[in-house]
């Protein structure tokens, strides 16, 4: 980072340029709407100052048509920008199906990232250029917010909740990554580097820092180690729902509700199993909230997802 003054933040995506265009155009509109106020106030203050001769006949103290028009015209103009900006925002909330999914765990005061191939990093996030990337994020403690100014996006990261952020970074380079939600003592030092690499460099980086074990495989090992397979395994003496084919399916719950088994449902069923009990099963699973951290949960979730199409759960 250069110590010189920067008047415009760097851009790492095409989307960032669209945000800049939006704010520049909207800035022009509001300047247009407020200019008459500033110009006329100064003009009137000089022209009609007390003691100065000026034409003061036909003074008005009401004019409904004028008032209605200066209420409505700016409003309608601003609505045009509302449509533009809301469309951009909603697009930015729907990641494409083929996005590369990374998991993010925030904790006081660091960022932990896991790549599906197994690479893990702290306070540095490597992503391939030109490819949609989806971050599935959660926090180990308080609320944080992942902010990459060069992408012009941020998203709060909440405890026990998966939030997501997606982007296509198309300009290789090293950019800043910051926590934007006040999170305690070292909030301003919860920063990192956002590194966009050409796909071949990213593949090389993955190969260098990755392990032979992917996220799901690691989850599979945890599944055994934590004793999950004792109940959820194929030949278990305890009656517990099978996890094969679970992800994405519709689960009937005790009490008649149904829920789609998404990442959040899997997370909650591990951490707070009594929240949503599958219909026909006894609420006997112990909560794992105090035993494992969010990183382990994300590995277990990755493993359960990988079993979505498998026949029977066999780690």
């Amino acid at each position, binding site marked *: 980072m250069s*110590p010189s003054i*920067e*008047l415009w*933040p760097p851009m790492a995506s095409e989307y960032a340029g669209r*945000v800049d265009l*939006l*704010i520049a155009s*909207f800035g022009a509109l*509001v300047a247009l*709407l*407020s200019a*008459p*106020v*500033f110009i*006329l*106030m100064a003009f*009137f*203050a000089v022209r*009609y*100052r*007390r*003691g100065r001769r000026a034409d*003061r006949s*036909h*003074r*008005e*103290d009401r*004019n409904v048509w004028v*008032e209605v028009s*200066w*209420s409505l015209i700016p*409003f309608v103009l*601003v609505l045009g920008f*509302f449509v533009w*900006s*809301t469309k951009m*925002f*909603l697009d*930015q909330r729907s990641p494409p199906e083929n996005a590369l999914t990374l998991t993010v765990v925030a904790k*006081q005061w660091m960022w932990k990232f896991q790549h599906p191939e197994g690479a893990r990093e702290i306070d540095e996030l490597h992503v391939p250029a030109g490819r949609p990337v989806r971050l599935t994020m959660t926090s180990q*403690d308080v609320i944080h917010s992942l902010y990459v100014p060069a992408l*012009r*996006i*941020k998203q*709060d990261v*909440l*405890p*026990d*909740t998966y939030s997501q952020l997606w982007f296509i970074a198309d300009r290789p380079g090293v950019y*800043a990554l*910051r926590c934007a*939600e*006040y*999170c*305690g*003592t070292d*909030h*301003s030092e919860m920063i990192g580097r956002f590194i966009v690499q050409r796909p071949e460099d990213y593949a090389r980086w993955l190969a260098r820092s990755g392990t032979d074990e992917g996220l799901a495989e690691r989850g599979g090992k945890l599944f055994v180690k934590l004793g999950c397979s004792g109940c959820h395994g194929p030949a278990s003496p305890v009656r517990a729902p099978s996890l094969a084919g679970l992800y994405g399916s519709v689960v009937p719950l005790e009490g008649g509700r149904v829920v789609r088994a998404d990442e959040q449902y899997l997370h909650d069923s591990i951490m*707070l199993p009594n*929240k949503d009990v599958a219909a026909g099963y006894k609420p006997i699973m112990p909560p794992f909230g105090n035993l494992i951290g969010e990183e382990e949960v994300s590995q277990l979730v990755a493993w359960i997802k990988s079993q979505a199409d498998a026949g029977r759960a066999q780690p």
Partner: protein
Amino acid sequence: MSRRTSQDAIPDTREERASYLNAGQGLGSWLLTHDHKRIALLYLISITFFFAVAGCAAALIRADLLTPEADLLSNEGYNRAFSLHGIIMVWFFLIPSIPNVFGNFLIPLMIGARDVAFPRLNLASWYIFMAGGLLTLAIVVMGGVDTGWTFYTPYSSTYSNAYVIGALAAVFISGFSSILTGLNFIVTVHKCRAPGMTWGRLPLFVWSHYATSVIFVLATPVLSITLLLVALERIFGVGIFDPALGGDPLLFQHLFWFYSHPAVYIMVLPAMGVVTELITAAAHKRVFGYWFIAGSSIAIAVIGFLVWGHHMFVAGQSPYASAVFSFLSIVVAVPSAIKVYNWTATLHKGEILLDGPFLFALAFIGLFVVGGLTGLMLAMLAIDVHVHDTYFVVAHFHYIMVGGTVSAFFGALHYWWPKITGRLHSDLWSRVSAILIFGGFNMTFFPQFLLGYEGMPRRYHVYDPSFQVLNVMSSVGASILGLGYLLPLTYLLWSLRYGKPAGPNPWGATGLEWSVASPPPKHNFETIPLVATGPYRYPLEADAPDEGEGEKEAERV
């Protein structure tokens, strides 16, 4: 002794006709007073003190941000400094500032009443306010609190090691002061207006305070309950906001902003009322569009309750809810725009006196327009996702709360000072300080818009070196601003002793408060005035009796 309503008999002893400042001497006569004017002065002194305390915290923050490293304060010390700054500025200066000082002093005078509806309750609300304020100071002495003024959970309810409970209690207590003041004003405006003072003849200052009072009464209880829930979770571990206990952290943000966004309008509506009075008085012309300005105050109070979600666009609420909140935030800008355009039109063909109060009013309008329009930018979803929780937001709300409200507060102080004290202050110096405040303010906060867009998050103690130049500019501006705030303290106090006597109406303004002596007699009006015309009948001399009687009551004091 002050259970007087408009129906009471005229006070006829010489002592009771004396000015409110001379009616009774000694500390007891002030601390036990039921006189709305004396209570207003109690508030003026106490909020000036809190403004100074919070200003010192701001000075610490700006001094620390001169360098990108943590050198003056530790991380913990910095977090406590900005929390203290926010908590005291919001709850112990900005919210009570104009309503509790000028609202208290002026509403009875403006509507032709001898006091507010509940004088004892009025005094009680000052004591409650002081209890909250002193508790906050005690917390500061003990070591402070590090949650920011927003108390976001689960940080405040579970993770912070500071004196959160004490700070919550202080804000909780001060809330009752707001509720009681709001209640008092509502009843006063409904029940204590002089004969003939119809709703359409109320000065717009009164309309804006009426709207503010409605927010006081409806929004403050929500904050009180929310803070109580945080305390319950913190002390007893009841799971309300902390997901580890089965709670929902977003619920806190919904409840907090349900109060705190309307609270922004608590801060700015009274300021708008002040500016309307200042503009018409300086222009010596009837206000343009009385009903649009009065109605826009009410519209702001109502719509202001429906926009809280625009603080949560990236917090994890439904994107469709965000879209609705974005739309409503654009709607709420309309009544504010109406006011600004109407003030401009009021100046057209006026007889404008370029005095200190007018310059403060212009400063308010200029800064409020920038603050309001950048607020409109923040209401745009795609822009907010980038600048949310950055210095862009810090700059935006300081333009509204400090640029807007504090400028209007100083404008009000200069405009009604002769009425409150009976003395004239230096017009030259008041113009100098208005210009100094306007310039210093822009230099402090404009660079922060750029910092925010470049990506400097708020509440950052250690920052990227590329942000240093703008931060230094901001800190230099803050010293000029500080000087601008200190200056009035000197010449206003000087005027108490050496200022010329003001006479009842030094500005040649309309309004019942200018029809009584300066300083006003203890019970305001010897005869309750009979009001026959609307407000702002300029020019005064040519008061054409076009609506029956003359302008005001037969006898002036």
